[in-house]
């Protein structure tokens, strides 16, 4: 199974904010974490994470700093801001609404979907 591009794009922001809400991190580690939690089903193009991070930084949801990694390389670490946490809470509410609505629809339609129309009651 492959999640469509639009869905990946729409879920990317809450996913990154959610991961950063757990603690400071950097690009490669964020991608690995996305991979782990989705069981490999969310296929991100690695590079495109960085423009997203820069956009979130610009909006003030996250902030960054250059530090030296344990391996001795220069690495850019990102951390969520107060404003980012508020944004994350807002996104969670919206996603909960969407997921809840979908669940309700699928419950009433049942599974598998009925093949014939229900007879009208007299």
């Amino acid at each position: 199974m492959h999640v469509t591009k639009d869905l990946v794009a729409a879920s990317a922001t809450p996913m990154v904010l959610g991961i950063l809400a757990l603690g400071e991190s950097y690009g490669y580690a964020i991608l690995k974490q996305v991979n782990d939690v989705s069981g490999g089903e969310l296929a991100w193009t690695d590079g495109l994470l960085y423009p997203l991070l820069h956009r979130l930084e610009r909006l003030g949801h996250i902030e960054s700093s250059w530090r030296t990694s344990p391996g001795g390389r220069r690495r850019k670490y990102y951390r969520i801001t107060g404003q980012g946490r508020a944004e994350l809470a807002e996104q969670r509410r919206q996603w909960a609404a969407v997921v809840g609505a979908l669940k309700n629809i699928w419950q009433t339609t049942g599974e598998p979907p009925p093949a014939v129309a229900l007879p009208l009651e007299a």
Partner: protein
Amino acid sequence: MTIDSDMDLETQVAEWRTYMRRHRAVDGADVDELEDHLRATVADLVEAGLRPDEAFLVAVKRIGNLDDLSREFARVHSERLWKQLVLAGGQEAPAPAGSRRDLLVVVGCATAAAIGIKVPELFGLDLANDDGFYQRNFALFALVPMAAYFTFRRRVGAAVIGVLLALFALGGVGANAYPLAEDSQSIVITAIHLPLALWLVVGVAYVGGDWLSDRRWMDFIRFTGEWLIYFVLITLGASILVAVTVGAFGAIGIDVTDFIDSWLLPCGSMAAVVVVAWLVEAKQSVIENMAPVLTRVFTPLFAAALLAFLAAALWSGNVIDVERDVLILFDLLLVVVLGLMLYAISARDPTARPAFFDWLQLALAISASLIDVLVLLAVTDRISEWGTTPNKAAALGENVILLANLAWTAFLLADFVRHRRPFEHLERWQTRYIAVYAAWAWIVVLAFPPVFSFS
């Protein structure tokens, strides 16, 4: 993992970096960040059993299509497509070592320039009353600090500093040793030629003792054009500021014109000379140069105007009427045409094949040379009839020097557009000809006053 494959990976990463840097929307810090990602991916893949070169290929593939990536970066950082002048280094990337020192040097030199112009007042030379002194010497006050700035910046050796000091001292002698009357022609001529001679001395500091490098002198030509444009822009801004300040203080009944005339204008303009030089140096690789752009616009227009003039002169059969100012006017015309050609040359890719624009330049060079020949004929006629003055001799000499340059340039261009000569010959001709300008300027400053018995 062998040492060999490690080396291999380093070259591959280096190549990938250069390729990334070509995308304008991606800056150095972004490439650093992506490289860190690339290396982390490679390290994980190698641990999983891939060879480094295989791991590199997979990692690059995972980063994704670079054009898409650069488009995404451009959407976030659209301002990067407008290149920005970063003077003290961004906050993200550490400032390159030495830029702090450079800032100190420029502030020091600009302050020295601003104070220097007021020093003669301590010896009773007033700006308002002794304007002859300032007229002869302003180039020294402005250009010595600028040369000092380049000596610091290029870290030139003691020999070059010695040469610079000697030349500036010579300029000081030329300006002040001769007994010239305040209203003589010679003093005006010195005031015009000394700045030119000293500007080329600054060129010596600019090339940093690399006397014989045509590239460096070409850089100096570029620098001159950009410096002029920036200086004009800054002067415009400053005059608006002055006008507003005078008006605002006037509104509360305080007259600041005295302060502006005797402090702000002289000190400010002297400091501006150094600051503009620093600006041009700092922005050199960042912003598209202005001079070549203007050149592209004006070369066709000037060529058309000159051809029209030439056609009209030939058709009407009128001889050019050599009045007092005509020589100067045509000198000015030649200087402008030469400037246009120089900047077109300095901005041109030396390896590009001849194109339409080169034909335009050829037309410009030929028509300017022809017009100048007409003027020269008329002038020599007049001089042989009426005798000469310092003014006429200087203007005539300039005409001849510029004409020689333009005519030979036209010859080289004609060869170049017919594929008989590489473009480099033209560049070399222009950069070596700078020595002729320098020699002539010094002759006028040092030899003209005695030759014309200080008239």
